[in-house]
């Protein structure tokens, strides 16, 4: 199965994707990440109102194989979390680019510039060992 890359998103080396909607940044994990984790059984969400800095581990995605920290690519305040994941964490496996995890009101949108575009992220993944 080939992995999907959404060209409208930005990607971190730690496999989060991000999309800016005004000054709100929506964050999820890539198809590569959900595929590597396999069946996701639990997502620990951050709390709305949390002040976060770029690079902080703010959520955890737990699969039958591992539990991985999800880092926020931008600094700011958590303004919304995807509570639907509490009951249905598997939607991340089914639709990784639709199943967002949290939204950050970014204090500095230029932090997004440090992320890769889809083509660069795809090339980056090609260099990684499976």
């Amino acid at each position, binding site marked *: 199965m080939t992995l999907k890359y959404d060209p409208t998103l930005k990607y971190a080396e730690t496999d989060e994707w991000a999309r800016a909607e005004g000054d709100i940044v929506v964050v999820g994990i890539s198809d590569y990440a959900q595929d590597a984790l396999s069946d996701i059984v*639990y997502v*620990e969400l951050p*709390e709305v109102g949390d002040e976060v800095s770029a690079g902080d581990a703010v959520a955890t995605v*737990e*699969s*039958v*194989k*591992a*539990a991985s*920290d999800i880092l926020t690519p931008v600094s700011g305040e958590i303004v919304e979390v995807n509570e639907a994941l509490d009951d249905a964490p598997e939607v991340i496996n089914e639709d990784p680019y639709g199943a967002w995890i949290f939204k950050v009101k970014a204090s500095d949108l230029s932090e997004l510039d440090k992320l890769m575009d889809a083509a660069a992220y795809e090339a980056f993944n090609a260099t990684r060992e499976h």
Partner: protein
Amino acid sequence: MRYIPHTEAERRSMMEVIGIQDIDELFADVPADVRYPQLDLPQPMTEMEVMRELDMMAAENANLREFASFLGAGAYNHFVPAIVDTVISRGEFYTAYTPYQPEISQGTLQAAFEYQSMVAALTGMEVVNASHYDGATAVAEAAIMAVNVLRHKRRTIVVSPSLHPQYRQVLRTYTQGMEMKIVGDELDGNDFHALIDLCDKDTALVIVQNPDFLGQLHTPQEMQDLADAVHAKGALLAVATDPIALGLLKPPGDYGADIVTAEGHVLGNSVSFGGPYLGIFAFRKKYVRKSSGRLVGETIDVDGKKGYVLTLSTREQHIRREKATSNICSNQALNALAAAAYLAAMGKHGLRKVAELSWHKAHYAAQQIAQLDGYEVVGDKPFFKEFVVKCPRPVAEINQYLLEEYGIIGGYDLSQEYPGLGDAMLLCVTEMNAREEIDDLVTALGEAAAPMIRLEVTL
């Protein structure tokens, strides 16, 4: 689990791979003069001689088979039925190893699952782990778990001064470097109200003991009120308890505890200096992902057959490494098995009987001692199997008299940890203490009240 040593051929092939000729080359970095130090050891002995030597050393102890004991304070002399040792001595069970591989460990895993299930019923909690080292480390794990549950936003632990003093010490050493603040036990007199007043926006957990270290019982209503007040402050409540007492008393799960810990050795594990003991750790299901230690779960395999596995092990250090919920993932498998065998053998009614006998005998002893000149039973609260007695002389002197004149191991000397109580001892009475022993204790205490007159007898 099997242990198969390497063969000479295997050793040789490994040495070839790493390019050495001799095993000694592995120790080349150790300075030659300390590599094989001269050990000043006695001459070797035959097995017979070793047995005799060890018997003689053991005979220097006052042991619980030959001496009447009224010493408790965290380690309790309860009866262990013979079936417990029979079960745990089976070769299939007799290992300290954790069952990482479900495919070869179904029996061990099932035993752990049954231990967890019975302790869950006993404590009134939803989840029980496969055990911690002892009651003290279980308390420390409760603190770590509460801080994790509250996402490290709260880091203060409020502990009751009537939580076992050694548990409080272990809590402090165990959590060093975790940036926790531990308060509440500065004053011996800090009661529940004082503890609640100490709770603030940084309080993650309140830890109390019931029955407490001094034997006193807090009623379910007092405990529920405490739980409600602690929860209203946004913190969790941990209750350290005595599993034997739960044969008779309402379980902490019924009065709002979020975490329940206990020293579990009383369930089928004998009293021994330094353990191994058994850390009971139970909690609410909603905190399961922040819990420490192993959890054994029941599941169904591809053929629909029942099987047992380690559940939620992604929390643990062999997978999550430094981000594990706890870096203690070992458990006391054999001790937990003994507890399971004990609980199964005693049953609900048997455990209740043990608790009732302990309660009645302790109250008989307290009643008799209260009538002695110079002694006073302290405290206005109900108690279970332990109570504090104010003594007319230093406890060490009284205990020496009891031991030398009556072969009685006296109570725990509280003067170090609770100096405010003066010359006070914590006495413990269990189902193991015969009526005659209690009467002897009362007589001996009465005699010991007067300063000893030492008679020099010249033969």
